[in-house]
Each structure stands twice: as C-alpha cells, then as structure tokens.
C-alpha cells in the first residue's frame, strides 16, 4: 500500500515511500516478523541539466542532453534503484521449521538516473 503522496511531490528522480504489508498479501499466518516493511521505489524525472546531481552516470547525463535536443527520438534516462539494502524475515517454512533468512536488495535506499 502506498501512503498518500506529499502535497507537492518533487518531480525529480528520488525514492518514494512504499510500505509492504504482509497481511495485505495474505502472508500473515506464516511470516512471523516483520509484519511489513518500508520497501520504497524510485520515481521522478531525469531532466537536463539536473541529471548530473541525481546520482547519474556520464552516459545518463549525455542522454538527457540529447533528449532535450530531440525529445521524440531519444527518451530520458530511467530513474532506478542504485543502492539497496537487505532485510531479514522470520517465518515458518513448508515443514513447520522456524527460519530466519536474510534477503538482499529488499529496500531502496537511493535512486539514480541510468
């Protein structure tokens, strides 16, 4: 579920709040903890010339410049996760064992233009 967006959302590429509730997806009887977690997602524009400040690669900066000259022919770069962090989930598996497992790349910490 995505909480209601702030009143004046920034149009630039940045992490957006997204809370994943395990009970929303009907997993609450086998996931022990957490009940949910803040996963976030990336959204926003990579416009010229700001892309240079938005965690962008050199190529993305070039692409925004070309897009500004030829918007129809070349799209903007994409706003994607560039730094993620893991979470641990405690759950019962298919044999009723108690499992604590580390999952990589589950939380978006930073976004960038690529």
């Amino acid at each position, binding site marked *: 579920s995505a909480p209601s967006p702030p009143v004046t959302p920034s149009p630039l590429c940045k992490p957006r709040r997204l809370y994943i509730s395990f009970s929303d*997806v009907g997993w609450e009887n086998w996931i022990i903890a957490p009940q949910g977690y803040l996963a976030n997602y990336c959204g926003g524009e990579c416009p010229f010339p700001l892309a240079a400040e938005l965690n962008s690669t050199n190529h993305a900066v070039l692409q925004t410049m070309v897009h500004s000259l030829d918007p129809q022919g070349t799209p903007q770069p994409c706003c994607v996760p560039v730094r993620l962090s893991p*979470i641990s989930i405690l759950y019962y598996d*298919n044999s009723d*064992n*108690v*499992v*604590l*497992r580390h999952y*990589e790349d589950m939380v978006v910490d930073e976004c960038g233009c690529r």
Partner: protein
Amino acid sequence: SPAAASGLSPQESALLRSLGLSHKPSPKSPAPVPPVLWRIFHKRRTLPGPQAELESCRVEELNVPGSIVRVFADQGRFLPEGQPQGRLCLRKLLFFNLSALEEGERLTMAQLELRFHHSSYHGPSPGQVLELRLYRASPRGLPRPGRGPLLERSFVQLRKSLLFDLSAALKAGEAPARNLALLLEISASGGPGSPRSLCGASDAFAATSLLLVTLGRQCGAARSRR
C-alpha cells in the same frame, strides 16, 4: 500453470520463488520461535543499511558465516531401553527432516539442543553422574554398527538446556543429507539407591531441536565477486 494449480496468482508464485520458497507455507503446528532467533532478528533490524549489507552473509550472534538460520523440530520417538545393564534411563531416536534445505546451500554450523523441565528435577544427588551418548543412527533408530558415539558427556549438574556442537560430525561446509537420525542415550550411575531411582533426570527430558546455519547461494555469488 503450476501457480494456478496451487491456487496462487502468478505474481504470488513468482514472489515466493524469489524468496526461495516453492509454495506458500501453511504452518500446521507452529513451534515457538527460539529466543536465539529473536535476538538475531532484532539485532539485524537495528543495523544501518550499509552495515546490514556487510553482514548479510554472516551471523554475528553465532560467529559463523551464514545467511539462513533454521531450527528443526525433532520428529523422532522414544525407544525401549532394552539394555541388560539396567542403568539406561532414556533411549530416544532423534529424527530431523532436512528436506527444506535447498541445493547449493552450504552448512556452516549445526547445534543440537536438549531441553529439560528443570522445575521437576533437582538432582543429581552427590556422587551421582549422568552419562549422555549420541550415535549416528538409521531412520529406524538402529545405531550404525561398528561406530562409536558421535559425542559422549558426563554431567554432575543438569541445566535447563544443553547445547552440543555437531558441525564437525555433520561435516560443515558440505551439503547435508535430506534427513538426520541420531540415537540419544542417557544413563545414570553412582550415588545411593537403585539405578532406576537415579533416572529422574530423563523424566525431566522435555524436547530437542537442531539449529542449522547455512550459506545460501546469494552468498556464494557475493563471495566470488569479492
């Protein structure tokens, strides 16, 4: 599709697969969560993102590499003593179904825990010794012929919980078998009274569980990258 057959939406199936699960668990007799797992879970939650990333393939609490910690409940049964010495107080088949372990997982730690109802037993009395032996066994509870015990301990003091490191016995680093069968024997000796009367400790026997720490495939890839 398999997903439809299991009543799951394709998205849910894909998500479960990405979490390393073949289908949605539906626990029938959920065991209480061992305190050690709560401690590890809460400790990791307090770690800042970058440090959590660094420790994703290590279990600091147990000081071993690992990304998955599982606690398996014992599915064995008590066996008749059948020993002529009469000193045997308890003989139990411990059976752990390890089929939940996935291909490519590497074992880094195996710890057996025996728990006793501490409140009902206050012995052993002075001069009394409890002897505990653990053997590899067949799934039917028969000890492997010609094999000595995996471990042998003597106790003059009984604690609520006894922990035994079986990593060496289970050859940490290798892929464990699909199940593990062990034969547990507790006998008593010394002290006044008949051996039978010395067996209070085994009556206090409550439960046993096996904790395994493994390195999942994601850690192998990280290792090669590093």
